[in-house]
């Protein structure tokens, strides 16, 4: 299998879907002539022209809503937010129009649209540019929410998202764009709604998604080597719809669970996972479910402080020792 970066995997997915379906187009700030602020759309303007790769003014609310209308008229827009921090300005269109159009029209209008871009913290971008609103989108019926961690999932899930007939929030990791991994050849599509065990294990279940897979896998290795603790690492991949069945199955096996996410703790994704798991696997739990999250503060600029906010292998390891009472 070819080895690609997460960025190139996304680029391939966009290119292949645009080749496959003339109704698919990409719109956003700097996506065309500049090849995208993070170069995810590199080369697409040349191939597809400025009709299908469209640079916009800085008007998130406007072009998000324009995308919704274009989708109602039968196109399949892929709307890039330079980062999801800026999508706050467009969230009325996402929540009140994209997510509700099918329901409030009695099923007459679908909105096949993908809103994509980097979400979460990068490096030292400070408080207004380092946020994860993943749990906000996942809160909303009518939306699907996807957050791939690997190049293969990035490609396969983006293709599935573009083919989906519903609005999909596609959360990319800016820190993942340069990461490499094997990507299956051909029309590689990963269905939405399926978690994947990125590592098998028997003593504890570690749940994560997107960037948090990296410290979680590191922690799992260290736990194996240093303490002989066998951790199963489950990457949920799609946040909504959530693959609860697989999570419960894993916890039924391990009886212990630690959830890792980059976002803020209060009512984060992990809070829902705790709720879903304890409801279904209460009697199988040998310890409370613990969470490793981003610190409950706006993101500081200083590098050391920023690092202290993020989930690290050590924080995951400490949590595992607590749930396995091996601390």
């Amino acid at each position: 299998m070819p080895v690609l970066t997460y960025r190139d995997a996304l680029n391939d997915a966009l290119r292949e879907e645009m080749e496959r379906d003339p109704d698919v187009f990409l719109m956003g700030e700097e996506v065309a002539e500049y090849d995208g602020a993070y170069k995810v759309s590199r080369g697409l303007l040349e191939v597809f022209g400025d009709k299908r790769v469209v640079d916009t003014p800085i008007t998130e609310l406007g072009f998000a809503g324009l995308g919704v209308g274009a989708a109602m008229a039968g196109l399949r827009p892929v709307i890039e937010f330079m980062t999801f921090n800026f999508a706050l300005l467009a969230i009325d269109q996402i929540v009140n129009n994209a997510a509700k159009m099918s329901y409030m029209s009695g099923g007459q209008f679908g909105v096949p649209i993908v809103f994509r871009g980097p979400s979460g913290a990068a490096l030292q971008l400070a408080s207004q540019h380092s946020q994860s609103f993943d749990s906000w989108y996942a809160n909303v019926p009518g939306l699907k929410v996807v957050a791939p961690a690997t190049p293969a999932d990035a490609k396969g899930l983006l293709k599935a998202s573009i083919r989906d007939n519903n609005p999909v929030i596609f959360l990319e990791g800016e820190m993942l764009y340069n990461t490499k991994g094997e990507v299956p050849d051909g029309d590689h599509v990963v269905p939405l709604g399926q978690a994947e065990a990125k590592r098998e294990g028997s003593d504890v279940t570690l749940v994560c998604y997107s960037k948090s897979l990296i410290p979680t896998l590191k922690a799992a290795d260290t736990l194996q080597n240093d303490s002989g603790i066998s951790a199963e690492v489950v990457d949920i991949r799609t946040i909504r719809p959530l693959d609860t069945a697989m999570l419960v199955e894993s916890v039924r096996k391990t009886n212990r669970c630690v959830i890792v996410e980059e976002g803020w703790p209060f009512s984060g994704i992990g809070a829902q996972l705790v709720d879903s798991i304890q409801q279904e696997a209460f009697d199988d739990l040998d310890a409370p479910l613990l969470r490793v999250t981003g610190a409950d503060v706006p993101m500081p600029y200083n590098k050391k402080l920023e690092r202290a906010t993020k989930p690290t292998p050590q924080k995951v390891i400490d949590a595992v020792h607590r749930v396995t009472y091996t601390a």
Partner: protein
Amino acid sequence: MTQVHTNAGLDSARTDFYRQLLRQMLLIRRFEEKAGEAYALGQIGGFCHLYIGQEAVAVGAIAALRDDDYVTSSYREHGHALARGMSSRSVMAELFGKATGCSKGKGGSMHLFDAELNFFGGHGIVGGQIPIAAGAAFAVKYRGGDQVSLCFFGEAAVNIGSFHETLNMASLWKLPAIFLVENNRYGMGTALERASAVADIAERATSYDMDAEVVDGMDVLATFEAMERAVHRARTDKTPTLLDVNTYRFVGHSMSDASHGTYRTLEEVEENKKNDPIGKLCARLLDDDLVTHKDIEEIDAEIIAEVEDAVAFAESSPEPEPEELFTDVYKD
């Protein structure tokens, strides 16, 4: 800007067309009167924004469209839905929240939709429908079609960000869109002058290098003619237009708002009622002997019957099944 009135005398060859306009305006008027009654009886709930007084705007504007053009509106859209050709049965049933309503009873008064007629709703967030209409225009251009996209919104919506962002994109990209401001002079209880630094809405077009016209929205023919010019620009020249259509709502903002008292006087309302768009068209048609009083009575009788049938249909229609709660959240 100076307001464009229709000077053209009536053309007897177009009598059927004039009667059609009259018929549609009367239908909306009678429909809304009934809706008001049904609301008082508790058969309609939630927010209900009647269109009484503004009939000439929806009817005159939509008469200039082709069947395959797009129409998008606000929560005050009963009139637009009917003028677009949605049946009074499906609209009334929707207001009643019945399964036979255009949106299966899930949308209600503020969320009327009809995919067959390219009627894009029915939107409750002020200004929220403006970029959606531009999106339909974008799709037309994308596909190289020649339809136009007409968007209705109130004058208070011009102050909100989405108006600004959308008109800039529409002009920049030459989208076949028509932004029609139904300028009834009030946003809820706030007079235009208290909310907008510029009272002349058409002035706003300058910021987007967009064509604009001020239109007498109490004159259905003036509205039709201005729309024909805007449609030509959109369909042929591929450029958008901003229309400032002056009108007046004879009733309160919604069923929970008195028609006068707080923010406007009884005198003002009565004064404007003298300018009733339906009365005006009737008078002109009678003057030119294009209809008789009897004709008008017949049309009105037909319409009253149609609206009563719509109410009977809505009353006798079933509620949505309980399972409907969970359908349509996602498309397969």
